[in-house]
């Protein structure tokens, strides 16, 4: 009857069973259709960019863990998420050596210097993207048209550019809907935006695929639905008011919702648990601030797209939100500070 050893631990002796690895793995599952659609739309180029991004993130994490004498943490899937998200923010014709460099920066400066998973202040993928934006402003704003006929047969010449050489972009480059609107006041049909029939980063084209992937994670209770809802509702409301006041100079709310990286950012990047506040009220404030910043940067800023900076600023203020917004402890009257 009696085993060799009685196992002793303090209560609780039950655990719910959803582990951090389960959550991370499911985020990867949710990102796979988004990546698949990116490859469908942009062909081999997108496949190469995404592969290079994931590989460089995972290898960087592994090497840094070994270098610092720790057990490797690549099995927790978080580096894969960073790699996928990072790759999905890049233009499909982005030179691969830059992809690899950005992936290394994502993990090294975005995550590892803070202490690894759970300690990073900013979304690592966006740190890498921000670095590339500063280092290679031309390459990161050079886009290709989606659904090119030759997308599965030829590799863009710019991808294979040698490090530190000027990449040569193919002739079929096109403007994104946001920059077209910003600089030429040309609006694209919302329907085309939702289906991803426009040029843009590999992962920011199909809003519908991203929304469905987000619903999967929300359904599995692995994502805080309040964050995307707060961001999208703020963007919609604000642009609705602006558009109502002056339809000539401000785009429609649906255009704002479905263009650029807003869907990918709202659903997959702002929802990074590590960088977002911990209370329900906190995340609503966080989401509202991000939504506000997106509209402000897009409409009044110098850049056509502001999702990346909006989320990075949101990450920066998240700890402050947590400090101010705390639950009223049971049985106490005033809010603790």
């Amino acid at each position, binding site marked *: *009857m*009696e*085993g*060799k*050893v*009685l*196992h*002793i*631990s*303090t*209560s*609780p*002796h*039950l*655990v*719910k069973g*959803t*582990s*951090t*690895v*389960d*959550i991370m793995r499911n985020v990867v599952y949710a990102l796979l259709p988004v990546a698949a659609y990116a490859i469908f739309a942009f062909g081999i180029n997108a496949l190469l960019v995404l592969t290079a991004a994931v590989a460089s993130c995972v290898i960087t994490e592994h090497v840094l863990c070994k270098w610092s004498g720790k057990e490797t943490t690549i099995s*927790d899937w978080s580096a894969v998420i960073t790699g996928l998200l990072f790759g999905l923010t890049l233009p499909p014709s982005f030179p691969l050596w830059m992809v690899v460099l950005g992936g290394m920066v994502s993990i090294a400066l975005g995550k590892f210097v803070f*202490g*690894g*998973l*759970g*300690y990073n202040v900013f979304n690592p993928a966006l740190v890498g993207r921000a670095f590339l934006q500063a280092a290679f402003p031309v390459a990161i704003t050079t886009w290709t048209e989606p659904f090119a006929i030759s997308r599965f047969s030829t590799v863009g010449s710019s991808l294979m550019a040698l490090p530190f050489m000027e990449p040569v972009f193919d002739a079929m480059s096109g403007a994104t809907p946001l920059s077209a609107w910003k600089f030429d006041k040309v609006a694209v049909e919302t329907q085309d935006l939702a289906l991803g029939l426009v040029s843009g980063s590999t992962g920011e084209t199909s809003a519908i695929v991203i929304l469905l992937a987000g619903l999967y994670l929300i359904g599995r209770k692995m994502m*805080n639905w309040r964050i995307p809802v707060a961001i999208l509702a703020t963007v919609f409301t604000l642009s609705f008011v602006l558009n109502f006041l002056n339809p000539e100079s401000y785009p429609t709310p649906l255009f704002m919702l479905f263009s650029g990286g807003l869907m990918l950012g709202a659903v997959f990047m702002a929802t990074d*648990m*590590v*960088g*977002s506040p*911990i*209370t*329900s009220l906190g*995340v609503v404030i966080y989401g509202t601030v991000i939504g506000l910043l997106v509209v402000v940067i897009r409409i009044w800023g110098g850049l056509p797209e502001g999702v990346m900076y909006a989320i990075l600023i949101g990450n920066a203020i998240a700890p402050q939100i*947590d400090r101010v917004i*705390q*639950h*009223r*402890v*049971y*049985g*106490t009257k005033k809010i*603790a500070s």
Partner: protein
Amino acid sequence: MKRTWKNGSQEARSLTESNLRRPMGLISFSKRTFKHGVHPPENKQGTAGSAIRQFAFAPEIILPVVQHLGAPSEIVVREKQEVVRGQLLAKASGYVSVPLHSPVSGVVHKIGNVPILSGKMVPGLHIRPFPASGQEAIEGEPIDVESATAEEILQGIQDAGIVGLGGAAFPTHVKLKVPDGKECKTLMLNGIECEPFLTTDHRVMLEQESDIMLGIRYLMKATGAPKAIIGIEANKKDAAIHLSKHIPKDLPVTIQVVPVKYPQGSEKMLITSVLGIEVPSGGLPIDVGVVVINIATAAEIGRLLPYGRGIQERVITITGPGVIDKGNYLMPVGTPLRFALEKVGIKGSIREVYMGGPMMGMAVSNLDISITKGTSGVVVFTEKDVKQNQKIFPCINCGACVDACPIFLNPSKLGILAKAEAYDEMEAQHHLMDCFECGSCSYVCPSNIPLVQQFRLSKGIVRKRKASQKVA
């Protein structure tokens, strides 16, 4: 004067059955519950339907004098002395202490140190029952519910050795004593039993309704409460309906069925669920005019006080994937755990045993301990049911613990502070001492961070620091 055990309940039953009131209006199904909390798998189906069965007497009964919170009882018998069932073995050694009665007729074989659940050795008695004895129980001074004063009832409850049977084993007469200047407006009977696996209270409510009603009468008189509410979780509707049919006409008792959620059985959560009010931080239920008593404790009072008997046995759920004959057993206090497990049968080899439920119960480190007054259940897991230790990941700030904590603490933040040994900050700024260690945070944590385990240690350290400050 001697009387057999069974007769007591029968008489109490005839007392109440004549004046039954229709159940309409006595039972309400409420959607209201406390905020946050968790839903662990209930795992009650294995024993909820099985009636209470009398358990055999062990060849040797082992009774530690520490079976309650407070001062240990003082042994008043000698070695080799013959004792009768119900005889006083150890008397209360102060106000926060209770006496101990013999659960069997037999001989005191040995007095010496015996192991208890916490791992300590404490003084205790080994009693060998007479094999062919009728096991009739000795009785003391009966306490009549109509004529006794509140003080006499409280004294009677202490003399019967009654402690909270829900698990904490705090002396019931101390809990019932309403402090001067306070008033008990509501007596709350706790029939929640939110711990997974346990069905003790469930069976008691289904089978000991007249003891419960009589117990409530004593309790209302002792506290001066004008009304009583029985709180029951919705997974025990049968018990709620059964009890509602047995409320005497003249007894102002109502039943409130509340949604299933852990840790609703905690006093504070129960009060919030049933009455919609909060107990002040650092305060007791009496601060909001409520006294909470476990339903099985009430049944025990109703069974023992009319005859002046002491507590000799209690209902225990023995269950878990490792147990062959799962069930609810009426078991003599002091039955060795090893004997109990051999009787019910274990498949395979035991890996983990808890006394109490899996959420707040304690792991057993030694099968030679005994079933005590506070043991509400025994849950057994064998080798194949226990997962290997899970890897601990860093906190990913997911907020699951924040959304689980029924006290609205921030376990994530507290966990980080505990790791940094910032105990003073935990207490001063993050309400550490409000944590009642329900374990919901550790239950939900995807990173397997031992949150409540750290808080338990931290609370101990804070208490020690405070005590040493007082001395200095």
